[in-house]
């Protein structure tokens, strides 16, 4: 058996060069699938889905608000899994994955908060309330910003990776708090209506566009994450090449001075 076949898929992907080659081939297909699904979901949202019997046309905000909230949370789960992989298995791409996921997760969390606020004003009569669900989502946004600030404050890449991985794992406790906040506390936000033990409580006419939208934006998230990982690998290569060039220039000038 060759050495290649003895390696697991994770080990094979751990090689950044192999990841770059594989992701270069996958990326256009992933981006195309995401674009097609999002366009179809928008068509369903604006031309097929009926208005809600209570919320009227504002229910259209749900088709982007709910996927944004899910992706905001999924981004942090991805950071936590990557952090675990980095701290425990020393997977070379795990830190790259965690770093690439942070700005994406922050952007989708921000979008969930903004679209929720724009949905809240006509439905609740206010843009913001210090409600358990809204507040826990705001804390998630601050966690993302904290992770990005911590990483950019430390020049040593390995140290920054370790510290961010610890913070990433500690911060994951916010996810169950967000998920169950609507059950544990009295909140203005509605309880879960899609992912429930007894099945979704939304009518199929609204559920189907939402599912297409969620899948489409999830594929977009994975596309952007893969692109972000590729950029990060290129950034690290550039850094090591620049360091090597500086070292070489120093050696040349030192030997010239010695002569």
């Amino acid at each position, binding site marked *: 058996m060759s050495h290649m076949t003895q390696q697991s898929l994770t080990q094979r992907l751990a090689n950044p*060069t192999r990841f770059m080659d594989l992701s270069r081939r996958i990326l256009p297909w992933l981006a195309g699938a995401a674009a097609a699904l999002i366009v179809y979901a928008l068509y369903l949202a*604006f031309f097929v889905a009926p*208005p809600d019997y209570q919320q*009227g*046309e*504002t229910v*259209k*905000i749900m088709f*982007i*608000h709910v996927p*944004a909230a899910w992706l905001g949370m999924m981004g942090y789960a991805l950071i936590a899994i990557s952090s675990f992989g980095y701290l425990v298995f020393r997977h070379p791409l795990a830190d790259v994955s965690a770093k690439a996921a942070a*700005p*994406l997760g922050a*952007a989708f969390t*921000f*979008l969930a908060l*903004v*679209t929720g606020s*724009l*949905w809240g*004003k*006509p439905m609740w009569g206010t843009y913001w309330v210090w409600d358990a669900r809204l507040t826990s989502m705001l804390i998630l946004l601050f966690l993302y910003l904290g992770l990005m600030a911590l990483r950019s404050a430390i020049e040593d890449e390995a140290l920054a990776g370790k510290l961010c991985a610890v913070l990433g794992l500690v911060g994951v406790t916010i996810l169950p708090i967000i998920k169950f906040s609507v059950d544990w506390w009295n909140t203005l936000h509605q309880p879960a209506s899609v992912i429930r033990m007894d099945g979704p409580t939304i009518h199929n006419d609204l559920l189907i566009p939402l599912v297409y939208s969620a899948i489409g934006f999830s594929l*977009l998230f994975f596309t*952007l994450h893969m*692109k*972000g990982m*590729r*950029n990060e690998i*290129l*950034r690290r*290569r*550039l850094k*090591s*090449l*620049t360091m*090597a*060039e500086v070292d*070489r220039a120093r050696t040349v000038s030192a030997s010239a001075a010695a002569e």
Partner: protein
Amino acid sequence: MDLGPHAAFIWASYVIYGGVVAALILWLVWDGSRLKAKLAELEARGVSRRAQRSAAPQKDA
């Protein structure tokens, strides 16, 4: 398309959403192109990665 009395809230949501997603895409594409150009510039100056050097044929052998 009639989106009712709250159309402004719906359009504002979609416009902000589209703007942020477009900004993310443009930033990632721009960043990737910038990094590739810098790497190509370094490699043109003769600075190359160890993996590429070892994979290259030994011309002076």
